[in-house]
């Protein structure tokens, strides 16, 4: 099966579910990159380009939502979560409006565009907002189901999407529920808790670990907020060590969310793998993952070191 980027899956899902006339899609001059142009081809009368004005896009989305629209607002993660953060906070989250912020080009795997465009803080920033649900999907099927779930859910949702084509993790029968983590590989020695395309890397890392006698469980946390505390506690009880893996800075992202949930409910050792307080840089996605220590081999090494 070929690789599909989650942004691609997003555009296709919008077109698939777009017959619902309440759906309105906004973009900020990036519709070919965010893939909202896929929706535009089918429903041009409900797609609006807001130009290079992300703050306005977020508030216009809020205004549309007050009139009963289900609004999808898309741009790159850096411009959604950070440039327009306060608009999201005050005009979308505070009044709890029905806006879905679908932010593409998240993480290092944007690639050659470099640090200014590689958002590695969005999960932390969006997670800090009351009323916000934060989702980060790993593949085509999960993205498709997440978009459907976001349509059915009344309230603000941030969905983190990637530029890079990724392998499938989930099958057609995959059931998505907001707030419920998914065990994608069972194991008893350690749990790798991953989100986004780190789910695929963690599965590969688990294969490497198996060759070294370590039986690793892998959990896909597609909903970073509200996080599946019950599943995390169960994993901590059953496997001891928890290792979080994210294409995001280690401050306040998936690792932070997992630590918050476990320290309150079942304190245990957590090793956080992610970007170590650094900005990105230009390079191929593969070279970047290597440079920042996020390949399957590097993850496996860190797991073994953490097990001690």
């Amino acid at each position, binding site marked *: 099966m070929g690789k599909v980027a989650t942004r691609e899956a997003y555009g296709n899902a919008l077109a698939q579910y777009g017959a619902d006339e309440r759906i*309105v899609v906004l973009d900020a001059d990036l519709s070919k990159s965010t893939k909202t142009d896929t929706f535009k081809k089918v429903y041009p*009368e*409900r797609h*609006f380009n*807001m*130009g290079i*004005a992300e*703050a*306005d896009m977020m*508030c*216009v*989305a*809020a*205004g*549309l*939502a*007050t*009139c*009963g*629209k289900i609004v999808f607002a898309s741009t790159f993660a850096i411009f959604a979560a950070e440039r327009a953060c*306060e*608009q999201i906070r*005050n*005009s979308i989250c*505070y*009044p*709890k409006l029905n806006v879905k912020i679908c932010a593409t080009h998240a993480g290092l795997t944007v690639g050659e565009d470099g640090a200014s465009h590689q958002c590695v803080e969005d999960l932390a920033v969006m997670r800090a907002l009351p009323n916000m649900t934060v989702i980060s999907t790993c593949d085509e099927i999960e993205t498709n189901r997440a978009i459907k779930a976001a349509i059915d859910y009344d309230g603000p949702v941030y969905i983190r999407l990637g530029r890079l084509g990724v392998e499938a993790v989930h099958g057609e029968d995959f059931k998505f529920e907001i707030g419920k983590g998914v065990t994608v590989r069972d194991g008893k020695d350690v749990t790798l808790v991953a989100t986004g395309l780190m789910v695929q890397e963690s599965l590969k890392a688990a294969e490497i670990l198996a060759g070294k006698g370590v039986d690793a469980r892998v959990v896909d946390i597609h909903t970073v907020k509200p996080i599946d505390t019950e599943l995390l506690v169960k994993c901590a009880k059953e496997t001891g060590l928890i290792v979080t893996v994210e294409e995001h800075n280690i401050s306040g992202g998936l690792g932070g969310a997992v630590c918050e949930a476990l320290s309150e409910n079942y304190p245990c050792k957590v090793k956080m793998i992610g970007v170590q307080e650094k900005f990105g840089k230009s390079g191929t996605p593969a070279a970047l993952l290597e440079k920042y220590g996020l390949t399957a081999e590097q993850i496996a090494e860190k797991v073994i070191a953490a097990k001690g």
Partner: protein
Amino acid sequence: MDKLRLLELEKQATIIRMHIIDEVFSANSGHPGGSLSCTDIFTTLYFEEMRVDPKNPKWADRDRFVLSKGHCAPALYATLAAKGFFPEADLNTFRRIDSYLEGHPSMNYVPGCDMSTGSLGQGISTAVGMALAGKIDKKDYRVYSILGDGELEEGLVWEAAMSAAHYKLDNLCAFIDYNGLQIDGNITDVMNPEPISDKFRAFGWNVIDTDGHDIEALKAAMELAKRCKGRPTAVVCHCHKGHGVSFMEDNYGWHGKAPNQEQRDQAIAELQQKLDGIEAEIAKVKEA
């Protein structure tokens, strides 16, 4: 507008001003200057222009209003209460811990409030979204917003001005409360947003300059705005901050300060005198 109707609206505006003073006095904080400045715009909108139903505040076909300068919540609350959206007696709970009348308005707490505002620049941008929704749904409701002149220093206002013109939102009408003052002083000293009318014109808006304390002129501007097709309208309202209270008028010190008991009593006495004068005139007109 006939004389009696005009007097009744002026009477209503004076009552709203008295409520504003008492709201800010009872909370011992809030923004009296800008609230008194935009009171006549509020009165004309809610008592002469807007299609709203206090018994059905979420009516889908209602005209919308967004207070982009959200700190002037005292004026919004006094107007909504006077219109019957909630009891006037609640106004003196303004800014209290157990009140629904927040320092800046929340759409989820206040009946008749269409958008939560307070962070400058965002209100007008959300109003663009409401107007766009009206166009998508082919509804005939109109969307109104009041902005401060200092607020025009926010870049987002101009992003919104651009998108409103781009999508030809002739169902959108923004009032600029042009009183020339902001917290730190004269707008031209702090960060000059002038020439205001020329800027909106350059952004593709229909622009009407008017006296922001002349209810007949405001009503005429609203009529002109409705007749303008293909462009949003900016009504640039030349106002006086603190209008109606002698010691607050044109004094930026009253932007965000509550009066003490003595000042409150003087303000109410001045407004009461104005109210008595209007009522005497109403009686005369009715006799004639």
